């Protein structure tokens, strides 16, 4: 497993070798974005408990995998996320308020600003994988150099679409990155029940594409391997499967209780000894790139941004009930027009 920073925040030999590849400013940015993702996530859980947003899928513990990978993307690369990638969404340009709107059940939360190539979070599991391959195929047909990234979890690798997507991309050598965050559990089912192969990365061999096993809580290593995978894709050398080994510190969603199925000593170890944000903070402190005061002020600033995002989301005009009928097709059919009118006039819907 590729690791450039130890859980204690020390650079490994490989880490030392790659240290100068990235500017100090960028290294500081990684921490700032990870703090933002974490502060966003913690507030979202609180908002759910207060009934201000709906059921929410927490990401805490996966900040390094999400920020490290998305920092390597070009603004015109395509992102096909799953439902836990809020860190990725924020980094590629989704405003905080809109990510909150998504969890309030507002479609505005699925509509990124102009120019942001972020698809709505995918819920049916693994369906985004062949779609990312399709965007990569379009990129190849258009003779462009943009890549496409599919984000998914360990559970998705048991679905047929994982195989179909990787096989297709392998055959046509398409510019797509398959980024798996293996957080150990698909809701309650542990990875050893998900897969007989010890790693997901090793399955890449069967598709004749590179498979990379990386410490997903090491933002530096994730950033590095993602950079290499993207460079290969842009050069026309085809796809890469990256398995970022990480851990979901909380439950699957706010409707789940992970204490019912995970051993407490395992959870304790990941929380207390392998936290991705602590690791990178310790490394930057050790390398003299930040001060504790700066971290404190960043955290404070991130909290303010999150506050602002909540305010914006909560002050947005309430959804119109008739929005139910919008955007089923590019034009409104006569049938939907009638159903919409019935909704507006509150008449008994006798006619279809």
């Amino acid at each position, binding site marked *: 497993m590729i690791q450039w920073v130890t859980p204690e925040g020390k650079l490994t030999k490989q880490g030392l070798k790659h240290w100068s590849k990235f500017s100090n400013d960028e290294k500081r940015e990684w921490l700032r974005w990870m703090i933002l993702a974490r502060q966003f996530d913690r507030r979202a859980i609180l908002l759910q408990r207060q009934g201000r947003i709906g059921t929410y899928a927490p990401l805490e513990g996966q900040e390094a995998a999400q920020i490290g990978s998305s920092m390597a993307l070009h603004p015109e690369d395509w992102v096909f996320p799953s439902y836990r990638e809020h860190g990725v969404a924020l980094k590629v340009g989704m405003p905080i308020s809109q990510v909150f709107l998504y969890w309030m059940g507002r479609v505005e939360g699925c509509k990124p600003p102009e120019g942001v190539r972020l698809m709505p979070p995918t819920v049916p599991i693994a369906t985004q994988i062949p779609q990312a*391959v399709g*965007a990569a195929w379009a990129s190849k047909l258009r003779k462009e150099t943009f890549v496409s990234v599919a984000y998914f979890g360990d559970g998705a690798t048991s679905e047929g679409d994982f195989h179909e997507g990787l096989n297709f991309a392998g055959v046509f050598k398409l510019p797509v990155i398959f980024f798996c965050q293996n957080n150990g559990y698909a809701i309650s089912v542990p990875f050893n029940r998900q897969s007989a192969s010890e790693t997901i990365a090793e399955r890449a061999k069967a598709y004749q594409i590179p498979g990379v096993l990386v410490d997903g809580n090491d933002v530096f290593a994730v950033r590095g391997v993602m950079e290499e995978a993207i460079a290969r894709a842009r050069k026309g050398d085809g796809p890469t499967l990256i398995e970022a080994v990480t851990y979901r510190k909380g439950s699957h969603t706010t409707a789940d209780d992970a204490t019912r199925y995970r051993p407490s000593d395992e959870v304790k170890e990941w929380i207390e000894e392998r936290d991705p944000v602590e690791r990178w903070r310790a490394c930057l402190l050790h390398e003299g790139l930040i001060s504790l005061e700066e971290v404190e002020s960043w955290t404070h600033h991130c909290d303010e941004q999150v506050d602002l995002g909540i305010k914006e989301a909560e002050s947005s005009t309430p959804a119109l009930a008739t929005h139910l009928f919008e955007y089923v097709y590019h034009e409104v059919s*006569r049938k939907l027009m009638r159903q919409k009118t019935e909704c507006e006039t509150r008449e008994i819907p006798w006619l279809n």
Partner: protein
Amino acid sequence: MAVMSYIEAVTLAMREEMQRDSQVFVLGEDVGVRGGVFRATDGLYSEFGEDRVLDTPLTESAIAGVAIGAAAYGKRPIAEMQFADFIMPAINQIISEAAKIRYRSNNKWSCPMVVRAPYGGGIHGALYHSQSVEKIFTGVPGLKIVTPSTPYDVKGLLKSAIRDDDPVLFFEHKRCYRLIKGEVPADDYTIPIGKADVKREGTDVTVITYGMMVHFALQAAEQLEKDGISVHVLDLRTLVPLDKEAILEAVAKTGKVLVVHEDNLTGGFGGEVSAIIAEEAFFELDAPVRRLAGPDVPAMPYSPTLEKEFILNPDKIAKAIRELAEF
């Protein structure tokens, strides 16, 4: 005006659209070098090259999924399912994804793709090369479903489907492929999706149907004409969106309606058509609405005797029309 077969009209429509718009491309199993197992993509590979007529692995879910991703990026994919029977692995992509992308992204993304699939039986295709699958999709908002019956309609509707900004399932009745021939204009015409077509005017009984059954109904009408029964035949052409006004008009012509499809009776699209008539044209009716459809067995068998028993034909349709006429 050139006379051509139903399948030649399929190929012609694709060729013309690929010439017109460089974003259009075809993907599927055996569509390239082989020109398709039915030869629907015949000649396209040599004319447009392997990148626009893509032979894929045997991977229906990815064929649909890749088409969705490419469509998001502005391409206009035509995904071929070799047989409608094999669309099953792609259903998650079509129903969960293609049908909902515009809706769940608040119009930010769309899915302008066509999924072509040969369906239906009567060609000794056995259980897994004969199914009608339209009822799986007709209740899924976000999809459009086209089921043409003639070469003229094929060309005009397939062109519309390719130009449409939403996902269209284009079901081609495989028995029509070489059996049905007709005149097809050389010009670049389209037929709007969602418009039914009166294929025969009549005054005694109305038959509402689509696909191969249109031809059986027309043959039945010929037979009955000799006995003085005048049959009105409405070809739906498009199941979603449905041309309700044309249905109501056709009901009013005769007051007696037979709805026909090869798909199974229960849950088949005839139920929807009958419900609309019952709700909105009840007072036009002189007899109960009747449905004639495939029996509720899992598939069309391979045994010629059983296949014949399953499938409708002009005689069965004529008998049902006669019963209604005498009601």
